[in-house]
């Protein structure tokens, strides 16, 4: 590994961290179609969770899956909202998300300090957009930043029962 590669990793990482998770705006309203109110409410909820959970947001599904997730608080730029307790992240109990809508599930997992991987799978039985499988399963103890694979029902399906709001 050459020194120039190390310098690149360091510089890219530092520049990426100038984007503070809490500074990223939520999802804008979709272009006028249907269900605007619902989408707006979801976006607002996502923003709220971002703010509340800023200290435990773990990036990065973009890392090849073999790196440790970058923590929000680097030594050079500590997040003002990062509690010290997260500096020594112990094992995390994986929440059970099967049956949740994907937005709820991802908010739950990211809020718990985990990474999320997603795959879609056609399902005749489950409502579209709900989580139909999860690996590792709920209740397992995993390290901070571990990746949880969610399988989400794709396509049309039966109408979901109204989801419990968080």
């Amino acid at each position, binding site marked *: 590994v*050459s020194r*120039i*590669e190390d*310098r*690149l*990793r360091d*510089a*890219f*990482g*530092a*520049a*990426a961290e*100038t*984007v503070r998770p809490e500074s*990223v*705006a939520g*999802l*804008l309203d979709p*272009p006028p*179609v249907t269900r605007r109110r*619902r*989408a707006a409410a*979801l*976006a607002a909820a*996502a923003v709220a*969770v971002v703010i509340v959970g800023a200290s435990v*947001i773990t*990036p990065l*599904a*973009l*890392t*090849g*899956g*073999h*790196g440790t997730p970058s923590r929000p608080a680097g030594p*050079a*730029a500590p997040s003002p909202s990062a509690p010290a307790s997260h500096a020594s992240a112990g094992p995390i109990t994986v929440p059970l998300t099967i049956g949740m*809508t*994907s*937005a709820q599930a*991802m*908010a739950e*997992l*990211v809020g718990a300090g985990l990474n*999320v*991987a*997603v795959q*879609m799978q*056609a399902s005749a039985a489950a409502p*579209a*957009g*709900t989580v139909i499988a999860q690996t590792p399963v709920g209740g397992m103890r995993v390290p901070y930043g571990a*990746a949880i*694979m969610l399988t*989400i029902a*794709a*396509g*049309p*399906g039966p*109408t979901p029962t109204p989801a419990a709001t968080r």
Partner: protein
Amino acid sequence: MTAKVAGGAATPSSDAAARTEWRADAAADVIAGLFRAYSVDLVRLAVLLVGDQASAEDVVQDVFARLQRNPGRLNVLDKPVPYLRTAVVNGCRSVHRSRHRARLLRVPHEPPVWSAEAAALAGEDRRAVLAAVARLSGRQREVLVLRYYGGLADQEIAAALQLSRGTVSSTASRALGALARELREEL
């Protein structure tokens, strides 16, 4: 350990056979979930390619707006992450193209986070490295960012940029050579 970003070229279109209509509320929910999980990472990726957070956020919002307008696209996204990554890289290319046009009209844009002017990034050495990366060709910059920030394997970079694997590795080594010369360093 997980297949979350392994392989899988992004295939944003075609495959009409797999195409079914999503119910609007279910699609909105999935899209909100994807945004929740990946927006920060994608904005960070875009910042490295376009330089400033405002442009980076615009690129990412555009990608999700397109998904919202065409939720049927979700059906071909058995692996959403490679799709989102490729869409963001393509969006960043559009930013560079429109900046090129704007430069002809002398319209200024936000200084990059690694400029001394932006004062967002500590460390003169880091700023020099990133400024040198910014002077590379677009493809070289994309390959280096995906490899050394994204941590992707060359195979995954090839899929994301729709290049051959050989082109990825030759692009990377030429880019590293150019940087080493510019930064006066042995490879």
